[in-house]
């Protein structure tokens, strides 16, 4: 089942067209990786899917998932260094998108936050302040918040950019597990070609003025992994 469908979208950044006439769809449970050089519009594409920027032309359609029900992890941690907030407070704030009129968190919201805190092994640091955590822990907290905001889709914009190799590997394994065991659709922007090939079902390769979409095995059999 298609859950997101991009039809002939054109995106621009600072009035310059960077993505032209891109069409693809995202199928429920898929793991999609967006790769490409800097300035080819990867982050802009992510923002367009989230509804933060409007495509200049073309349409993005959603079915079975609302635009505000997409969990999101940003490129660099958008949270100020010394922001006083506990892990629990941050994770719980992910539940806000489904509360239209209710001003406070329900018991169900708290149970959900606790579930993901437990699932991502954050119990011990639940009450700690966010700024005191390591890079890997911070990304797991933001992942838990994103999971509270979604049932189905996670969008990740270079989530491992500030992580060391061990934490990166760990993070990709968690994401892969969420994708396979919990049927959460993953759309991730990455510079990390090896991990993209290892986990992704499909790869969208953006380059200046064009794009290619393929499966990882097509790339490996062609042997042009280095030309990506």
């Amino acid at each position: 089942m298609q859950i997101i469908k991009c039809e002939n979208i054109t995106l621009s950044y600072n009035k310059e067209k960077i993505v032209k006439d891109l069409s693809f769809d995202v199928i429920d449970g898929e793991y999609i990786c967006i790769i490409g050089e800097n300035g080819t519009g990867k982050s802009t594409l992510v923002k367009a899917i989230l509804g933060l920027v409007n495509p200049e032309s073309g349409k993005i359609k959603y079915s079975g998932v609302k635009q505000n029900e997409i969990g999101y992890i940003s490129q660099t941690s958008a949270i100020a260094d010394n922001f006083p907030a506990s892990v629990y407070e941050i994770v719980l704030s992910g539940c806000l998108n489904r509360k239209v009129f209710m001003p406070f968190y329900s018991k169900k919201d708290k149970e959900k936050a606790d579930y993901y805190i437990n699932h991502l092994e954050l119990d011990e640091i639940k009450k700690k302040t966010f700024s005191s955590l390591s890079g890997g822990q911070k990304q797991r907290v933001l992942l838990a918040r994103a999971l509270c905001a979604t049932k189905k889709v996670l969008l990740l914009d270079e989530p491992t950019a500030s992580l060391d190799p061990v934490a990166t590997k760990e993070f990709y394994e968690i994401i892969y597990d969420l994708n396979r065991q919990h049927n959460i659709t993953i759309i991730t922007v990455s510079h990390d070609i090896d991990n993209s090939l290892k986990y992704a079902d499909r790869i969208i390769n953006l380059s200046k003025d064009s794009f290619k979409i393929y499966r990882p095995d097509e790339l490996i059999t062609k042997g042009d992994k280095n030309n990506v």
Partner: protein
Amino acid sequence: MFDLILEMFSYSFIIRAVIVGIMVSLCSALLGVPLVLKRYSMIGDGLSHVGFGALAVASAMNTAPLKIAIPIVVLAAFLLLRISNNSKIKGDSAIAVISTGSLAIGVIILSVSKGMNTDIYNYLFGSILAMSTEDVLLSVILSLVVLLIFILFYHRIFSVTLDETFAKATGIKVNVYNMILAALTAVTVVLGMRMMGAMLISALIIFPDVSSMNISYTYKGVTFFAIIISIFSLISGICVSYIFSLPTGASIVTINLLIYIVCSMIKRRN
């Protein structure tokens, strides 16, 4: 000492000041957390100067000061918010232009309409005698409205303060909450201004929060300690000012400063 404090509370103007002061401190402490974290502290400062200009206009027209000042300052708050969110204009210098401009215009209006008198001093540095019973009632009602709105939107304001992009992506109307925050700040600034004065009111927004950020590391904790610090310094400031015949606003700010120093020392130790 105890007798002196008891005697102090037999004056109705002091009771009025304490009531309005507690309400305003509560509002400013709560609003201060997101304002300081969003680096909007300068907006509070800018608004107090605009408020001075508006009070001068109200005084020249001989009308109720709050009714004129509140709408003007709320509008100014939206303007300042736009300026600081617009990266093309240099936010801090634009705020300085607006705030010093209103201050200057206010001084001219006051001196032309009434001649240089104690009004200017009172508006700049605050006066505990300034409030009538009607003012107190209006101030209490408005502060209750500010508190209610803030509590209803507490979690959303937290989310917007923490991470605007995530909030926007998950469907929270970030601009609406920024505007609510600006409007609430404007009302609080105007309410507190006559007691604290235009020069000192922004201290009430900033000090309790930067102090409590030194001793607590969760959002709830920072909010809680900011309220305690804010109300404690207000009441002790009024007592000090009565006992030693010092200006009230300045006494409250000085106590806040002392608390800030103690809090940063506690942080260093840990």
